[in-house]
């Protein structure tokens, strides 16, 4: 397993390198943001340990740049900033985990292992399908750059469909995942909301598959 440590504290970076090499990882170190981004782009790493406060380019911007290039390498952020919003921002721009300095080295290792287990599937922070984009953190939906205002139920429905692009999703599954388990929601409530959604995002984007359910299409035929 090959790791990249991007950290401007030279002694911390060196200690991490020593320790992780001792665990059997191959470790590269970058001391600045641009150097880290460059290495992450061109090397093939299994995970990146990334400081937030970096000279040249902040950790947030490094992650965002990587994700924008469809680089899904798992990223663990390290920061001495312990504000709730600092952590939330880090995760929302596309990091996979966040540790506050000073951290326990044992926990760092455990979290790294967990990240490596999960691998690097496509997991964008912002979902897209054709010209349609949905940002769960900001709760914003845009189509060709134009914002579409959705109710929270419509938003949840669209988010679920956008996570399964091109697949047929049954009414029962939608009912299970988008609506609360309780109450007497009749299956035709799904039809009603799909109707609302079609009016807002475009009729042709939500296909009805007779007898099976609905399908979100990225590029309407």
């Amino acid at each position, binding site marked *: 397993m090959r790791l990249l440590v991007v950290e*401007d*504290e*030279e*002694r*911390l970076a*060196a*200690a*991490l390198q*020593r*320790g992780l090499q*001792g665990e059997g990882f191959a470790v590269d170190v970058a*001391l*600045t943001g641009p150097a880290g981004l460059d290495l992450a782009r061109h090397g093939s790493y299994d995970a990146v340990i990334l400081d937030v*406060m970096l*000279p*040249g380019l902040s950790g947030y911007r490094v992650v965002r740049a990587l994700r924008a290039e469809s680089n899904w390498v798992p990223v663990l952020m*390290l920061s*001495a*900033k*312990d*504000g709730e919003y600092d952590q939330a921002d880090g995760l929302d721009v596309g990091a996979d985990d966040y540790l506050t*300095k*000073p*951290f*326990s*080295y*044992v926990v760092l290792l455990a979290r790294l292992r967990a990240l490596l287990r999960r691998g690097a599937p496509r997991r964008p922070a912002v979902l897209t399908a054709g010209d349609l984009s949905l940002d769960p953190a900001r709760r914003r939906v845009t189509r060709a750059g134009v914002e579409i205002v959705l109710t929270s139920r419509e938003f949840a429905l669209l988010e679920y469909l956008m996570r399964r692009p091109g697949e047929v999703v049954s009414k029962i599954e939608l009912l299970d995942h988008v609506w609360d388990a309780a109450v007497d929601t009749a299956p035709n409530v799904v039809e009603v909301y799909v109707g609302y959604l079609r009016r807002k995002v475009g009729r042709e984007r939500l296909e009805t598959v007779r007898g099976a359910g609905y399908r979100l299409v990225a590029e309407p035929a």
Partner: protein
Amino acid sequence: MVAWWRRLSLRSRLTLLAVGGLAAGLAVGGAVLVAALGVTLQRSVDSEATQTGRDVARLVAEGALPEPVPVTGEQQVQVVDGQGRVLAASLNADRLVPVLHDAELAAVRGGGKRFVAGDRIGVTGPVRVVAVPAGAGGTGPPTVLVAKPMTDLQHSVQVARNILVVAFPLLIGVLAVVTWRLVGATLRPVESLRAGAAEITAAPSGRPARLPVPASHDEIQRLAVTLNDMLERLETARARQRAFVADAAHELRSPLANLRTELEVAQRLGDRTDWPEVARDLLADTQRLGRLIDDLLLLARADAPHPRVGAVEPVELGGLLRAVAEQYSGAAVPVSVAADQPAWVEGEPDGLRRVVANLVDNAVRHARTGVVLAVRPDRTELLVTVTDDGPGIPAADRERVFERFTRLDDARARDAGGAGLGLAIARDLVRRHGGSVRLADAGPGVRAEVRLPSTNVT
């Protein structure tokens, strides 16, 4: 009484004061009015009676007095001779007994006025009697007595008094209500200020707290504006303090994280650890932590209301510069001193050394080939300069670098730079010495200029 008065609301007090003042004024005014009315009516009665008396006296003098004497209204007229006999009388008057007794008659022979009881002429209430001497007669000069009952007059005064007794309390009542309302309306902005202020203390911090400003342009509006200004200043100070604490915590956590990770890694690697190297790293981080804590304490002390100034003594800056330069003999670039004449200031030697050292720290970090320290007199001040030939600082950032935790090190790794406190500390120290410090452009590089008040010790 005083305690009771103080317990009342301002509104009640103002209303009570207004109503009390008004009631007293109206009472005095009413009393004066009634008295004046009485006197005026009395005068008019007297002058009417006197006129009648004179008319009758003229008739007597001319010997043309008709019998009975003609009169108008309620007046009764008697003409009485020197012995008190009634010579003539009006139709409604007694023909035998004078209205005045002998003694009274004697007193008013030459003319006069007095009150007698009404029952003498068969009416109720007092009767005014006016005596007017008439011309010659048989036995002594006769006197004309004109009697007029005062009932009407008394009645008029009574009516006036009754009207006032009913009208004034009504007036006072109306004015009390108006005053209560008016004072309430005037004080409402004060109440909304109070409610606003109560909300501020209760509100969670973070929300910008402002008092409602009334639309008027009066004292209360000015008070609200002034208080809001104060709140804003407090909020700014609090925000600055919070930012400082957050920055300080961040700066303290970094070396601590290094220490912990270095130790944990070393422990985990066990025999494979290069312990002397670990010790070296730990020491470096411990020293950094120590320096940071010293700096933070220094700044915290500088923020105290009355920063304690250490022992002040005359300091020769040329020597001080040379001493600092010597400490930097091992720096990456040479540090030289240009100071030919002695330059004395009053100050703390340690503090001034710290100022120069912090500026040199910064200069050495950026200089390409060398750093030059100099001191020279400039009018009444001494100008100390620390000049480097590095890449320089954009004009827009030259003030910002003096703020705490400011680092313009976009392209610099942390270990090379400090925590961003050096220049802030230098400025605090210089200010404490009554001087100023700023950064100027030096062709290539930056020239830090410290101005200190000079003392002419030679």
